[in-house]
């Protein structure tokens, strides 16, 4: 079965998300769609899947024009989709999730899920998955949840499978497994649309690559194209994929954690007696699969966590138990995991967001007054220094793109006297161009002699920036390795496999 899109156009107000896009996907082929965030990939796929309605354009399945205005139309046309944010009901079992929307009715109107249970077991066998049809979805690891989504598409006989950034939430091992599954599906004749901005994966599995930029198809290229070329086509200019990290003298320990433990609200110990030393002038990366305690550790250092035990010395002074305000002013800069939720006040202006931490200090404040003039002058300076692209500093920060929002957070955090920078997933959801900027800044802090603690789930990022890498697994630092570790070894460590060779 083949899927063809002709002239798909979609606008949101004045913004054109898709500008007459043509695309053809053949049976038994993996077709990658590569583009930055906001390039219009997801919009396009939501149109194909019937979640959004195109302003104009046509969708052909096997050469026949299809009118897809609801997801049910897409499903009956044989189009399945694995969404970036899983479309599973967390409190339902796997089988209940699979029958939802396709329910079979037995005696007395009772729901019949026995058939679905069998189908799940059969598909699991065919593909070598181990999925329990009666497991509650929220108790399953994300990799398995994703398999549930794939199984659902297969049970409903999807001939075209759309995978929307499927690797964003996976460990390297899970990613490899997924790539294998994709090839298996391809062999069985499924047409796969693979949406991503990760160049390595595209080159590994794709048969064809379409690059989208600002809602337009820029090029259709073969997978033999180099990563550099792909990146510059995505961004529209030359991109430096490997940041320039100079070797230099590492200084004295500046942030020392001794037996640091964190418990979450339900009392579970999520960080277990961790020890590390961060030195001045080094980037110590904390690598690990999402949910192994990194977020809590990062938050604990800024005293955002309530149940922390152990000691945390910043430049020889205990900072555990300080107020958040005092922690920040003691010399910690903090880039939180979610800039929208924790980093910024969305409805405040850009200028206000830039002084959230210093609003009570001169020169911004005098007595009970806040000087709007100084605030906006200072903001203008930051805008120039950090290259924040905006209309006006008095606009709400929510009007900015993800990359520019992150620049606002970084500008604010680095405008205090800083000894240590805690960067938690600093490039999550950013496009190649913004990632480049953030990486330069992080290395800039390192070169200026500050300690940087980088929390990241991205292996490439960790390897490119770190001087040393601490791997977290189930709340513990299981290894601290040098940055010359191989990607495979690091991946194994992240999965909890302690390899003798990787010990430094």
């Amino acid at each position: 079965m083949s899927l063809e899109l002709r002239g798909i156009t979609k606008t949101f107000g004045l913004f054109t998300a898709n500008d007459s896009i043509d695309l053809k996907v053949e049976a038994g082929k993996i077709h990658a769609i590569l583009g930055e965030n906001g390039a219009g990939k997801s919009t396009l796929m939501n149109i194909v899947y019937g979640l959004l309605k195109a302003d104009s354009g046509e969708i052909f399945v096997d050469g026949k024009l299809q009118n897809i205005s609801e997801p049910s139309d897409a499903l009956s046309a044989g189009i399945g989709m694995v969404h970036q944010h899983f479309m599973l009901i967390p409190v339902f079992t796997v089988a209940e999730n699979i029958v939802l929307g396709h329910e079979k009715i037995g005696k007395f109107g009772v729901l019949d899920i026995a058939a679905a249970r069998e189908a799940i077991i059969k598909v699991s066998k065919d593909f070598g998955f181990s999925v329990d049809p009666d497991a509650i979805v929220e108790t399953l690891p994300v990799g398995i949840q994703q398999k549930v989504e794939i199984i659902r598409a297969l049970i409903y006989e999807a001939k075209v499978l759309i995978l929307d950034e499927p690797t964003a939430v996976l460990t390297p091992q899970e990613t490899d497994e997924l790539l294998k599954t994709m090839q298996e599906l391809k062999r069985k004749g499924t047409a796969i649309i693979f949406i991503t901005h990760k160049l390595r994966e595209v080159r590994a599995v794709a048969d064809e690559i379409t690059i989208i930029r600002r809602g337009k198809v820029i090029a259709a290229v073969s997978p033999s194209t180099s990563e550099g070329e792909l990146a510059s086509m995505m961004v529209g200019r030359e991109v430096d994929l490997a940041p320039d990290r100079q070797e230099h003298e590492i200084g004295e320990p500046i942030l020392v954690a001794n037996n640091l433990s964190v418990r979450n609200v339900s009392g579970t110990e999520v960080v277990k007696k961790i020890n590390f030393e961060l030195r001045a002038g080094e980037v110590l990366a904390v690598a690990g699969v999402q949910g192994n305690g990194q977020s809590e550790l990062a938050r604990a250092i800024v005293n955002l966590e309530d149940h922390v035990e152990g000691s945390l010395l910043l430049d020889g002074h205990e900072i555990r138990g300080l107020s958040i305000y005092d922690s920040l002013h003691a010399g910690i800069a903090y880039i939180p995991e979610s800039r929208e939720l924790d980093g910024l006040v969305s409805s405040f202006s850009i200028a206000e967001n830039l002084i959230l931490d210093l609003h009570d200090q001169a020169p911004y404040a005098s007595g009970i007054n806040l000087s709007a003039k100084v605030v906006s002058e200072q903001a203008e300076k930051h805008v120039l220094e950090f290259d924040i692209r905006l209309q006006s500093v008095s606009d709400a920060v929510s009007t900015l793109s993800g990359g520019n929002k992150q620049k606002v957070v970084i500008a604010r955090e680095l405008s205090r006297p800083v000894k240590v920078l805690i960067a938690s997933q600093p490039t999550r959801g950013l496009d190649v161009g913004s990632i480049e900027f953030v990486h330069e800044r992080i290395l800039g802090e390192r070169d200026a002699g500050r300690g940087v603690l980088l929390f990241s789930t991205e292996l490439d990022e960790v390897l490119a920036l770190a001087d040393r890498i601490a791997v977290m697994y189930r709340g513990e630092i299981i290894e601290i390795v040098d940055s010359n570790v191989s990607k495979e070894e690091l991946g194994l460590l992240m999965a909890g496999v302690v390899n003798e060779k990787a010990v430094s």
Partner: protein
Amino acid sequence: MREIKSSLEKRRLRGVRVISALSALSMIYFGVINAGKEKTTFGFVINSEWVIMKEWAISAATGARIFSALSILASIVAVMAYRKRSPIIVPSSIATFGIFMAFITWSASGKYIPFTGLLQGALLLAVPLVFGSMSGLICERSGVINIAIEGQLLASAFVSGVVASVTHNPFWGLLAAPIAGATISFLLATFAIKFSVDQVILGFVINVLVIGLTNFLYSKVLIPYQSTWNTSPTFGKIDIPILSKIPIIGPILFSQSIVVYLMYVIVGGITFALYKTKWGLRTRAIGEHPTAADTVGIDVNRLRFKNVMIAGLVAGVGGAYFTVGSVGSFGKEMTAGAGFIALAALIFGKWSPIGALLAALLFGFADNLQSTLTIIGVSIPSEFMLMAPYIATIIAVTGLVGRVRAPAADGIPYLRGGVH
């Protein structure tokens, strides 16, 4: 190393501690320090059921000691169950029962307690709460907060009273009530789902609207022309053959009006439908993760609209209970907050039909105990007695109910535009 307890364990531990402490207190206070000096008489027969024991008289002191001992025993079992990490709900319930009984025996020293009547009245007081909480349940499991239960009950009480008065037939009243409930639901559904208005504020406004409207009509129409508009006939009791003859249980459960029997059917039906049918699966799905339901081809807002309307029908029957089901005439603001207590029962019952039913029965019991004890002239200030149901609720919620989790999408309007 310090043992780390999860919040669930902590709550169980707190529950066990509270129950044990109360059992001991009950023994000390009701059984020893302030023991009653006279006999307490429990009456068991109110209708023509088979008689095993007509009444039971016991010295208040001995009775209180026996029941306190029962609750202490049950507390010990609960402690052991807690240590073994097995469920504590059964022993804690028995302990709670023991404390209640010790309290009743003590407080009615020298008096006659119509035991069967006490429970029968509890059921009757719970009826509107049960219908109200079922209405809330259907809405909230599909993701729409229903604060307007009070309005639904009041409007349908009014309409059923008026219709039954005019037609001289309670059945017409019972038929008209769900239509009134659904009309209120239509307002709620239209503004909450179509226009995404904040559902808490909306529900509150609807309640105020219904109170104002019924007050106005009551004073301008029902009072001046009472004989035409506000003298509704009521349903009589229907004894179910044989079942109604069972001692204690018979008169409580099977010698009731048609509205109460409808309640059994509706609670059973909703329980079955919610967990065993396609409708139930879809309803729970749109209340938890509407986007996911949409992507498998379920029309979220349509199903929500439909469910809010069904909820109105259910609440309507509960409203009819106030007039044609019991007193027969409409009174100003006669629901008196039942809609809000129904909402509390829904949350206390963890959004499950059986849980909400039990919670409503507990509220009904505490309420009726309070009025029964006041009527027989117990020397406790009635203001304290009025607090009893709520104190019981607080203890139960902090100690006994596990983690309470509302449907994840409760109160959040679903807009597909949020997808891109």
